[in-house]
């Protein structure tokens, strides 16, 4: 693996989420600076920011794209207790010339009384449906009955999970044998004994979601949860980020009688469990065909996990920050200069890439220890910032930090 490109995202605060669109040609970023930015990949392979707007009045936790069948639609959720749906409209010609696009707010979903911690669109075969979960322990499922009118959303279901919710994941299976299913994770640390992953299933007869399973073995706070694509199998695979990474297999058990209307019961098996992050794991995510699982943890690493043909799981790659205070803009310029000859990157590859691009930090084991030895950030920027026009603005941000300690939003 190698860093092919670095993009100066230019958010004024922490980035909380980055989301690719379905085809991987666009991406959306969201941040504590309350804004969302949309980036488009040009024909030259470069990423350009085509829109940036204030979306919420608090940190934006997550941003996600709807399936392109529904047009260019984004949803975001925030600390400000709302989720919002955004649609791109075809702008006026001078906007296009400037490479800018227009996003308008179609709706604000205000049902939650606490921070909305996750937002996900349901699988497209269910129509245009949006799900949120919030710290007050409620999962809400909204539907846009008319896909041409995104300003009308009706709250279809409210599932009370009794625990503060942190994450949700839809089962992507479109098989008729599998009713719609959603997994909810909780990071509630007040209650230590109960299972932190609940699985709800839609019941055709009652037209309601009912709890099908609680993973009783997961009692530590859960930060992220994600179903793998079904691949035509009869069982489901669910990855969970808690104090470690866990992969569960949910095998639907045969119903006792054909007309029993209760929710499906599952046989739950642990397929794999990795504690290499040494402590809390914050995100887990599958690649398109679920041959790889990535996880991010307190050790500051992203780890890639892969099963071989015998279903033995192993870590196959690690991404880690080099701990250097490289300035964004100067750094991006340095990279774009060498970004074109791909062959060069092929050879340099993997671990050596960082050193190749940053000769002034030519210590192979720089790591985080070096970070403590380096002078304060503002000094570094003066030394390494080739383009001084950026410097004042950035330094301003640092001074702002020192006066304004992390006390955001009550």
């Amino acid at each position, binding site marked *: 693996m190698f860093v092919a490109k670095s993009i100066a995202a230019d958010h004024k605060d922490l*980035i909380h989420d980055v989301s690719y669109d379905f085809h991987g040609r666009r991406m959306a970023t969201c941040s504590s600076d309350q804004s969302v930015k949309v980036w488009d990949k040009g024909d030259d392979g470069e990423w350009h920011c085509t829109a940036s707007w204030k979306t919420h009045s608090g940190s934006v936790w997550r941003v996600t794209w709807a399936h392109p069948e529904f047009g260019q639609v984004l949803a975001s959720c925030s600390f400000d207790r709302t989720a919002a749906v955004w649609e791109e409209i075809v702008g006026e010609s001078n906007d296009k010339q400037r490479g800018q696009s227009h996003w308008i707010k179609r709706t604000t979903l205000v049902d939650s009384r606490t921070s909305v911690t996750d937002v996900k669109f349901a699988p497209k075969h269910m129509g245009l449906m949006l799900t949120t979960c919030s710290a007050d322990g409620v999962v809400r499922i909204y539907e846009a009955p008319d896909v041409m009118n995104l300003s009308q959303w009706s709250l279809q279901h409210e599932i009370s999970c009794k625990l503060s919710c942190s994450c949700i994941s839809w089962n992507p299976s479109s098989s008729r044998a599998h009713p719609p299913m959603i997994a909810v994770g909780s990071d509630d640390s007040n209650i230590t004994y109960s299972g932190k992953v609940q699985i709800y299933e839609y019941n055709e007869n009652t037209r309601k979601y009912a709890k099908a399973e609680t993973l009783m073995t997961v009692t530590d706070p859960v930060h992220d949860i994600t179903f793998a694509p079904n691949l035509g199998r009869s069982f489901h695979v669910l990855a969970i980020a808690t104090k470690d990474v866990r992969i569960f297999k949910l095998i639907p058990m045969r119903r006792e009688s054909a007309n029993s209307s209760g929710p499906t019961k599952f046989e739950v098996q642990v397929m794999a469990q990795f504690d290499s992050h040494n402590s809390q794991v914050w995100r887990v995510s599958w690649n398109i065909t679920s041959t790889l699982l990535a996880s991010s943890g307190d050790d*500051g690493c992203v780890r890639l996990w892969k099963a071989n043909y015998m279903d033995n799981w192993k870590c196959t790659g690690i*991404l880690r920050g080099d701990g250097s205070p490289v300035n964004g803009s100067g750094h991006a310029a340095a990279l774009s200069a060498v970004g074109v000859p791909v062959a060069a990157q092929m050879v340099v590859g993997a671990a050596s890439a960082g050193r190749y691009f940053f000769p002034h930090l030519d210590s192979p084991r720089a790591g985080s220890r070096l970070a403590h030895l380096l002078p304060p950030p503002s000094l570094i920027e003066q030394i390494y910032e080739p383009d001084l026009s950026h410097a004042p603005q950035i330094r301003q941000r640092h001074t702002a930090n020192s006066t304004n300690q992390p006390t955001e939003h009550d």
Partner: protein
Amino acid sequence: MEEVDVEPSTTLIPGAGFYQKHLGFEWGPGDLIVYETNYKLQGNESCSPSVHIVRRDEDICSPILRKLFSESHLIFVGLQKIKEDVPSKNKKSQFVSISKNYRSVIRACMEELQQNAGKRSHDTHPVSILLAIELIWNLCEVLFIDAAPAGSLLLQLLDWVRLHKSDVDAKAREVLQSDSPAQHQSYWDVVISLVLQGRTDEARQVLSKQASLRAESSSVFKRMDGLLQTMPIFNPTGTQTLTEFEVKWRHWHEECDRCLQDNTFASNRHLETICKILVGDEDTLLEQKELLSTWYHFLVTRLLFTHPTIKPPDLHYYAQSSMNMFLGPRASPEPLDIILLSAFEFDLHQVIKDCSIALNNWWFVAHLTDLLDHCKLLQSHNLHFGSNLREFLVLEYASGLFTHHSLWQLAVDYFDHCPEFGRVYLELQIERVPLDTERKAIKVLRICEDRQMSEQVRSICKIMAKRALRNNRLGSALSWTIRAKDAAFATLISERFLQDYSNKGSFTDLDLLDNLGPAMLLSDSLTFLGKYREFHRLYGEKRFSEAARLLLSLMTAKIAPRSLWMTLLTDALPLLEQKEVIFSVDQTYELMSCLEELNSGTKHSNLTDQDEDIESTKTELLRLALARNLTMAIVKEGTIET
């Protein structure tokens, strides 16, 4: 099947991990986005402003390797077509020739890379990887695919060593082309190298240069020439049996030994060395380390002069000992050495596993495993997961291809030949192919249609329709919607067409509307749109009575939405006003009842007074025209034609 525990490689992200300790990430097609973040804090924090794109599959990008991918794709597809019913004897030769084809593609690629190496020096790295790949493949071909028996086995191994130690030829040429070859400093190196590779004829030729110079010792040279000339070489196609060859070879070996005992070559240390090599003296062979350069060359040379009729099962013993002798007790073998050793041990699974770890290149393991699987070599090892291993590797390789903007098309064929998960993988991957242009969308669509992937077909058409509608290209939107068979969307677009018509007074995309055919049955609105356009066409062609009949049927068959009846009736006005009678008595009655039905319905309360005035005027005009037409029609129909 012990897993080799390899420490995963770490990729450093520049500028991350300084302000904040967490790395956020997002999967993309073929890459991974990472950024610095903190999952415990809410904001007002410094953080690295960059988002980094980390690519996984490095080889896919290389333009020269692209040729390797596209050419081997053809061989792969050809291999899948070899029929089951061909007798296995004929198959083996087919498989060997396929293996050779693969290798020649690797060789061609290597040569191209070497040619370019002058221009771009950093490309040497892939050359060495290709070199290793070809070396391993060739050995696997000899040992597994061709499965040479005793006798021919050594001959093939010799060919293998000769092919991969070709610098001897260059050196020999240099020596022979010099002014006085015999005086050249590399002269004896060349002679000995040739002997080590069992190329006795060439060695004799080079030796003759020296012999002609040294008359005084010509008898010694003649003796060596004799030894080299009489060295028996097994001929697998001849009539000689292996036992006959062994007898002959032992005889020759004793003669060499005798020369050594007699000190025949004591006068010339070089010839003495050669003679020691001929009797297979291990110490002497090990002294030639530099000329041999690898332990496997040493192995083959050692076998050539000690066990020319080596049987495949005995190979591993000599391989292990040769490696130990050559590398010495302290040296640790490289991954390539381990892979070759596993091959000599006939441990196919270990070869494949080690290759996939060491080479980080799915191309090689996927194609080799596929070929070995066709040779039925994997099943015999382990019935349970033999075919899964093949599919697993082919799926990995094809998934890698799919991340490339043009190579993904090759991957489709690979997925097609994975019976278990190929289709699901293809479904997941193909719907992610960016539909940049209509042409590309049609290309993707055709692949899906050929495989009856109806959900993907529908989705692609829907995406394209949605995009066209967004850009106000109604015609394109409609044709994609028809392909998607999306009734609701077809209704929506039809309404947009009619809206457009009522604004502009004319239809756009006439070609499409005139040629809807049975597609117009997709939705009622679309049917009406198609029929209504047909009415306009008939009217334009002055086929008034047909136009009138169609117009009327649109209302009586309830195809036209009620909201458009007034428009339709207004359209009837010019037909009613024609000199000639177009609407018959019955038809006029029907028109009248339509008009009355429309007026008897609830009035729109939101109409302004002015609008209402216009509506009532229209109704009055229509009533008048209908009445006049009725009169004319009654008169016409009542008149008996004579």
